[in-house]
């Protein structure tokens, strides 16, 4: 049983487009949200984003196959790099009938990805808290390129220029027919993306989010208020890189192999930056919208490409590069804040704040404890006084 085929017009299959779109959107949503955490909130221009994603992918992809071959005792006496395709084929055969082991392998791979990402993030935080933005950008770019050279040349890791196969935990779904595996993988990636989004949104709404913005705007001011900007930046880099590592691990299980040239600068550093700039820096909803727009255009172009191809003398894929370059520079010129503008960080729930400003008494008690109530009352009167003070000193009110 394969997924149904619905043609909107010749060559355009709606269902396969939707599945491809969802996979792609989930992937890029998670990446750009984690980039937004570093770049939008903490102000670290991570031009080496590919390093953390590729790190998670390379290590988890390289270890999970070896681990499975050791545990299942499939070809464990053979050289894994040379015979990876054959060994992984047999492992996949086992995974198709053993969903528990598949889930275990999935979780272990994700954990390896997270660990490697966090480790790389910790290493990158050393320069990130010391160098100015332009030098940091160059350094991270260089580090990412260095890792790519290592991936290409250091054969024990991912086989160098010959790629290695990765055990596929979604293998069971292949037997159901074409498209089902993509659909399930898309659901898993969507779940991951939603989790990342909820986490980032909670961070943004918390005092931590406000502190990140304070550190971004003025380190000195944040420092004067007793915030340790170095520690904050380091922690943000570690967390965001761990997320990147997880994404790398999940994606490499989806494409079921590790190739060094998958992990290039354009796809994994530039596109996420483009999404963040289009959607709105320091604004998770904007970034989600930007990612949707980007994925829609890219996947749409992919579908239209065969229709367009007869009319142009060149490969129509080149148009996407031109389109996005023009789009990026136009956005930077005409609307540098992105589609959705960054809002000032909320301090109290909007309802409470509105009630306080209107002077309608105290907010509804949330906990019910007396201490809590006393604290809110104190806060309410303080805020009310602040607004009155503002009214009194405002020159417009005076005359």
């Amino acid at each position, binding site marked *: 049983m394969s997924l149904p085929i619905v043609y909107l017009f010749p060559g355009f299959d709606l269902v396969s487009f939707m599945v491809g779109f969802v996979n792609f959107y989930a992937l890029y949503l998670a990446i750009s949200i984690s980039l937004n955490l570093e*770049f939008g909130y903490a102000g670290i*221009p991570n*031009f080496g984003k590919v390093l953390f994603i590729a790190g998670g992918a390379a290590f988890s992809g390289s270890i999970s196959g070896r681990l499975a071959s050791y545990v299942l005792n499939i070809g464990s006496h053979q050289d894994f790099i040379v015979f990876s395709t054959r060994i992984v084929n047999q492992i996949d055969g086992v995974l198709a009938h053993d969903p528990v082991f598949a889930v275990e392998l999935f979780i272990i791979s994700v954990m390896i990805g997270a660990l490697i990402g966090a480790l790389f993030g910790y290493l990158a935080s*050393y*320069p990130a808290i*010391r*160098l100015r*933005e*332009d*030098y940091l*950008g*160059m*350094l991270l*770019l*260089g*580090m990412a*390129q*260095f890792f790519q*050279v*290592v991936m*290409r*040349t250091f054969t024990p890791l991912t086989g*160098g220029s010959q790629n290695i196969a990765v055990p596929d935990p979604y293998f069971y779904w292949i037997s159901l027919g074409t498209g089902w595996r993509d659909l399930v993988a898309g659901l898993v990636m969507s779940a991951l993306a939603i989790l990342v989004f909820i986490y980032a949104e909670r961070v943004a709404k918390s005092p931590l989010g406000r502190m990140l913005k304070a550190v971004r705007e003025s380190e000195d001011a944040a420092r004067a208020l007793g915030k340790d900007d170095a520690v904050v930046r380091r922690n943000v880099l570690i967390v965001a890189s761990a997320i990147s590592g997880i994404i790398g691990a999940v994606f490499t299980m989806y494409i079921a192999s590790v190739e060094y040239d998958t992990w290039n*600068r*354009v796809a994994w550093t*530039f596109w996420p*930056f*483009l999404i963040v*700039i289009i959607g709105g820096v320091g604004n998770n909803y904007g970034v989600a919208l930007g990612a949707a727009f980007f994925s829609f255009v890219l996947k749409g172009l992919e579908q239209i490409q065969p229709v367009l191809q007869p009319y142009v*003398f*060149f*490969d129509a*894929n*080149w*148009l*996407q*590069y*031109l389109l*996005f*370059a*023009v789009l*990026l*520079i136009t956005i*930077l*010129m005409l609307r*540098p804040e992105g589609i959705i503008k960054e809002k000032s960080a909320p301090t109290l729930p909007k309802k409470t704040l509105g009630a306080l400003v209107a002077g309608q008494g105290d907010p509804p008690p949330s906990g019910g404890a007396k201490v809590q109530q006393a604290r809110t009352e104190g806060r309410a009167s303080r805020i009310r006084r602040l607004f009155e003070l503002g009214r009194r000193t405002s020159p417009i009110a005076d005359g």
Partner: protein
Amino acid sequence: MVPGYLISTIVYGTLFALMAMGLTFTYMTTKVPNFAYGDFVTIGLYTAYQLHYLNHINPYGAGVAAFFIAGGASVLMYIGVLRPLARRGTSLVALMIATFGVDIGFIGIIGIYTDYMAATYRLVDAKQFFAIPGDFSLFGVQGVVYVGPAVLAAITIALYLLFKRTKFGVAMRASVENAPLARVLGVNTERIYITSWMLAGGFAGIAGALYTLWLPGGTSTGSDLIVEIFAASVLGGLTSIFGAVVGGLAVGASEDLVTTGLGLGFGLVWTVVIALLIIVVGALLLRRAAKKGRRGAKIGVGDMLSGKVLRTGAGAGAIFFMLVGVYFLFEIATGYSSDLFVQGFVSGFGPDVTPFQKAIPLLIMVATLLIIPKGLFSLRLPRLRRNKE
């Protein structure tokens, strides 16, 4: 007979010096690291390619054309993208992203161009071509080995004269140092910026055209090289044109010399020299780490080895550096038979190391940015006497 790796060192070094010079020029004027700079090299590459295969002009002649085409593209990028953005008060990071954007756009343009070449003129190797034949040869060595350094020397001397002797050069230096002040004095800084970008792109174009004589090129050559060009510029200090020449020569040379050295072995004497160098560099780093806390004060060995210094990352790193050097010396003194790594250094790791060639400039760059972010040519030499103020 000159060994092959020395010749390739010369060519590579001069090409990198040319490219790094241009990149430094753009950084000095606009203070933005230009990630699209590699594309100007690609323009030079394809100018030489097209002129050779369609018009039968050799790459030396194409170098002149490439100077103007790549320079024009560079000026176009400055006027069309960076200047309007800078006038709107765009932040540094956003400007860097914009140069990234130009790089991406260029991928599309060069892709369409090569498709066009392949379709119209049946040039099947348009995407990836071998080194262009037809270079002259002198004393059994290819001509570019002489022409490359000659071009570099000519450009360097011309720039030196421009900066020191002409009014335009002085105005150029002034507007790099302090643009508003230069404008107050009646210097047309815009004209100077445009000239700088023209020269910067032009140097990349020349380097690209000469590159085709020596190595195979393709659509991604420029964007593959960009990080290495940055490595050269950063090593030179990013603020000094002549620093860029030194940085470019060093980075270009490092690729071939270091890989050849690691492959064939440095020999006993050079390994001792390298070990001593590592110890000296470690000691200098340690001194710097100790000096950080107490500016201007005299630093003794006691300060350098105090717990306060050693607990910092820089201090611990410096000590580690020195220990590595000492370990090398110790291993050599005891016959270096127990350690494969030291053995490899002396008698060679074999051909396995050659693929890592491309990693060496990147390592140099990472090390430079971590240890001396301002590069070689901003290090202050220690004063002999204290200033009396």
